[in-house]
């Protein structure tokens, strides 16, 4: 691939009181791609994202995001990375517009520019009608879309999406997947997304990494992973089959 590596990790490891959460992780994500982080609960996906953001200190190993070391310069990394956490939290007493304004202010976006971005973002995620309602009254799907609106306001180069479709009904899931694709295609964001829902990952990711118990057991485009495991080129395998194969071996 000619594109530049945006995220690079080398032997990234996190140990929580003797328990290894992330085990010598080495992988790269290239500019403009959607990389799917796949693994069961407790595989270490969230921990990896937090280390890449500089919110958790690695026990050992190295990582760079856009060439910056998140442990040493977390603020610089957070300027270029947008993060949608697994459990999105919003201030309940604010409405969507106020929340986005706060995010814009924290990112030092000038007020006039911020207002324009907020209006556009609310439009794109379909919350313009509900923008003046308190977030407390939002459904899970609406909150998740508000999280995407935050990314649209912040306009980061890189987005980390932690389980963006978890707990959504099929309709909301489809909408979310479309929005993520839009971030990638229209904003050229590099996206690292984690999920344990195979179907969506298969739909939108350019490459995937399979993570089991802190270790990345395979990474690459889906077709190649299929070829490696099943040995027959060209034959169609669903991600689920590939995943199960790796999971049984681990």
């Amino acid at each position, binding site marked *: 691939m000619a594109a530049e590596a945006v995220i690079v990790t080398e032997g990234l490891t996190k140990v929580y009181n003797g328990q290894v959460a992330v085990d010598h992780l080495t992988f790269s994500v290239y500019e403009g791609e959607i990389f799917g982080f796949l693994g069961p609960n407790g595989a270490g996906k969230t921990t990896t994202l937090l280390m890449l953001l500089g*919110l*958790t200190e690695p026990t050992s190993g190295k990582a760079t995001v856009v060439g910056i070391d998140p442990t040493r310069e977390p603020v610089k990394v957070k*300027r270029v990375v947008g993060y949608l*956490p697994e459990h999105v*939290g919003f201030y309940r007493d604010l409405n969507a517009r106020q929340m986005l304004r706060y995010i814009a202010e*924290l990112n030092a976006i000038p007020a006039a520019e911020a207002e324009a971005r907020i209006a556009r973002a609310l439009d794109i995620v379909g919350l313009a009608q509900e923008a003046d309602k308190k977030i407390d009254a939002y459904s899970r799907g609406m909150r998740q879309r508000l999280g995407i609106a935050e990314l649209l306001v912040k306009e980061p180069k890189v987005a980390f999406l932690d389980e963006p479709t978890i707990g959504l009904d099929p309709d909301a899931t489809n909408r979310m997947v479309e929005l993520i694709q839009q971030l990638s295609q229209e904003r050229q964001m590099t996206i690292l997304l984690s999920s344990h829902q195979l179907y969506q990952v298969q739909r939108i990711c350019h490459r995937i990494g399979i993570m089991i118990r802190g270790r990345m057991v395979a990474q690459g485009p889906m077709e190649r992973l299929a070829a490696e495991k099943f040995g027959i080129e060209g034959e169609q395998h669903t991600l689920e089959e590939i995943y199960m194969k790796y999971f049984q071996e681990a």
Partner: protein
Amino acid sequence: MHGLKTIMKKELADHLSSYRFLILFALIAMVSLVTAYMAGVNLSKELEGIAKPRHVFLMLFTSAGIRISLTQFVALFGPLVGLVLGFDSINRERNEGTLVQLLSQPIYRDAVINGKFLAGVAVIAVMMVSIVLMITGLGLLIVGVVPGLEELGRVALYLVISIIYVAFWLGVAMLFSILFRSMATSALAALAVWLFFSFFVPLGASAVANVLAPSTAEAAALVRRAQLERALSLISPMELYSHGTVAVIDPLRRTTRSLVQVGVLEQLSLTRFSGPLPLDQSLLVVLPYIITLVALTCVCFGVSYTAFMRQEIRSL
């Protein structure tokens, strides 16, 4: 710097629009005004027919209204303001997942607690200043006293010390909100510390002094016992604060030692033998207490700071 300002602004707006703040403020304003009103009425009764002495204005704060004077009220219940403003400042955000959200924005981690602390201090300052202003107005109405320049200076100094005192308790509450995930636990812990220092330590000091230096008929032993009790009670920030403000707001005091409760006329007659201390002298008397109080606040904030900077912030 940018993050600090933004967070402080938001926290300030949150506080000022919260029911919690409004109820607290109404409660404290009510008690203060009633206390000052009673003190004012008593004062004007006692002072009827005699020439107005100096520093009558300050007596609005120091003479007993219903049971306790305004300064005593602040010493005892001021901490609650700090506790109520701070006990859930960090753990609420952690539990609701907004802390991760906040810290994934390009701000330094310390901007969060600095911003919250400063916003709390600003709220405390607003509360204290407006209460003192209301009392001043009340004093004008009831007793008809206009405070002199020196008296204003003393009140301003009193305000500063009081704000530091309440800020100390805000720091304690914030520390617990960092250490405990549950808001109920941090509220309870903060309350326990307040009860311990405000009620238990003063009582305990007397008990311990009794054991260590039993009173005998001897004068020297009595003095020793009194000194010991005083030293022990200074563990309590409330005692520090009381000692620190007493000579500031009550110019007739030459020491910070507690006097036998005396009435206004007796207090005034004392002035014949000893003139009031000038402001700078009063300041000198109380400076050690103020410095200790500031140091305590810094230590408390420092501990919060270190705890927060090392803490795992993920919301599980």
